[in-house]
């Protein structure tokens, strides 16, 4: 008889779940392309090469990211800036910048290594391609455009969702070209794709004054 | 329009002969069994035709019994074949002519 009571218990579980799903809100799945789950703040998505608010590129072609990469998927070559029309505030800029997304393990060591916070990660995760060449992201694809949006690999693709690129949430501090946090207190163009304006980074005294959790970068 | 019982009988005879020849020709115990079933079927067909021609239901009753006996025979026969196969790893009756383990 034990079998039968267990059997009825099992039927009750599934039947109850069905009723709660239909009439209640026990649904655990969402219809992905229509609605997206809010991703965790430190989600590691595809990379983006940032710019300063004045349009200068942050990358100085130092190849530290390529050096630290455990998967050896980053390829960088630097080039001296043209003094008349510099691409980056430093001496050199990233002339070639390629990431092989098939090898990348999304560890974000490159983000850690970057001295100018030129390379950061976004919340974008839809990176499927139909051939291996397209999986190698070049400078054109990685470098954010003037409006602060991440460029799409295939902008002409009818499946490309441009709205999604606008809400891409790259994490970057609003530092000045000098590297100092001189923008503090001034609300400005945020230099990173993401929802809403970001406050500039606080002073060191302010950081010391509050507990670390309150200075979360959101 | 109806078919004369003779035609059914002729068909049954042909089936019976094919079964009999198969029984003589083949050496695979399973196929020989199937040939026996074929012959039983031919006999059943004869009984049914005769029963219809003579308007007598006893023919059908006899077929019913033959079916049951055939089923019993197949059950035991196949069990024997499986038992033999475990010992000899063959289903050819030539290899089984000696009744020794």
């Amino acid at each position: 008889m034990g079998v039968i009571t267990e059997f009825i218990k099992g039927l009750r579980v599934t039947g109850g779940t069905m009723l709660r799903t239909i009439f209640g809100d026990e649904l655990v799945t969402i219809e992905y392309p229509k609605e997206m789950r809010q991703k965790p703040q430190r989600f590691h998505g595809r990379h983006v090469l940032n710019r300063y608010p004045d349009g200068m590129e942050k990358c100085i072609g130092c190849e530290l990211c390529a050096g630290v990469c455990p998967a050896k998927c980053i390829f960088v070559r630097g080039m001296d800036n043209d003094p008349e029309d510099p691409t980056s505030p430093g001496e050199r800029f990233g002339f070639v910048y390629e990431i092989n997304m098939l090898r990348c393990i999304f560890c974000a060591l490159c983000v850690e290594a970057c001295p100018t916070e030129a390379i950061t990660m976004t919340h974008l995760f839809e990176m499927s391609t139909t051939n291996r060449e397209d999986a190698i992201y070049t400078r054109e694809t990685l470098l954010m455009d003037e409006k602060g949006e991440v460029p799409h690999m295939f902008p002409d693709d009818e499946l490309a969702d441009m709205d999604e690129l606008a809400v891409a949430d790259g994490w970057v501090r609003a530092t000045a070209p000098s590297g100092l946090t001189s923008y503090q207190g001034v609300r400005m163009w945020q230099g990173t794709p993401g929802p809403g304006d970001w406050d500039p980074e606080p002073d060191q005294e302010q950081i010391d004054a509050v507990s670390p959790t309150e200075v979360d970068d959101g | 329009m109806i078919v004369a019982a003779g035609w059914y009988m002729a068909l049954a005879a042909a089936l019976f002969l094919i079964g009999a020849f198969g029984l003589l020709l083949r050496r695979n115990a399973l196929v020989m069994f199937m040939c026996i079933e074929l012959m039983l079927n031919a006999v059943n067909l004869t009984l049914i035709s005769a029963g219809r021609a003579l308007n007598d239901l006893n023919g059908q009753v006899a077929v019913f019994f033959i079916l049951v006996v055939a089923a019993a025979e197949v059950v035991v026969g196949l069990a024997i074949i499986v038992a033999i196969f475990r010992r000899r790893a063959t289903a050819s009756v030539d290899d089984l002519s000696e009744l020794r383990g």
Partner: protein
Amino acid sequence: MSWPEFGIVVLRVVVTFVLLLVVTLINVWAERKIVADMQSRIGPSRAGPWGILQTLADGLKLFFKESVIPRKVELGMYLLAPFLAIIPAFLIFMMVPWGKPFMIGDHEVALQGADLNIGLLFILAMSSMAVYAVVLAGWSSGSKYPLIGGVRATAQAISYEAAMGLAMVAVVIFTATQGEGGTLSLAEIVERQTGTWADVSPILSFIPRWNVFPQFAAFVIFVVAIVAETNRAPFDLVEAEQELVGGFHTEYSGMRFAMFFLAEYINIFSMSAIAATLFLGGWAGPTFETFLPGFISALLPTVYFLIKTYAIVFIFFWLRATLPRLRYDQLMTLGWKRLIPAALAWLVVSTVAIGFRQFGPPWS
């Protein structure tokens, strides 16, 4: 046979066929939706409203897909097996009366493919035919997993058909006491389940005269047996994904796979329809002819039939979502040591009870 009668015969076969196809399309969708609900998922939602056209889309996809034929198959049997699966599936449903017979002019139109006087025996025969498709598909594929699936199917079908037949026998014996003599015709069995139990006792006058009330044990045995007979979870050892890849249909693709798939769902519906016919009174139900328009009264029996059948189809889905798959020896134990003895015992009990009711106690 006159021409109008011939036309009626052709028409009812065609209509039954179409009904079966439509219902099967809905069935596949319903299973996915219901099992999804039971697992807090959404299920198909893209094709058509609530994804109801999903089956059609899948069918079209399978139709246009390449049918891969592996090199080591036995070609003749490999090509034959899908047809052997689908033909008995259609033939079984032809026996089921799915609506109340009505008159067109002076011709009676029975909503049923064919009414044989050996209807139940025919159903048993056809359901035992269905196993050939599985066995031959498994054998002819020329690889291990399908072969194991085929051998399992053979043993399983033989085991559970016995229990199914015995449950049917109990119903047939009981039905014989409900009218003039015994019958194996499904239409007649449904006719004898119309009305209520008012003649037994006035208290029961609101309970419909369905066989499930006096024959509940047979009903339970029958439902378990048909779940096993159609190779559905938890008895789906024939196509156990986790151990046999796909079982007998591992090597099939495209249209041929679709035929196996279709046959499985047709079998679910036909077997549920037979259970509804034997135990739940088929199309029997109140038609309110006095105050409803004629065509609604004529349509209501079909609606009742579909509701009853879907109630049993729902049991199939519910079991699938609830129970884990049985081990093979558990399957055989359940079949031979539990179900068949239970069916035999119930047969004896029910027959003795009927004898008492008909003839009184033997000692008086």
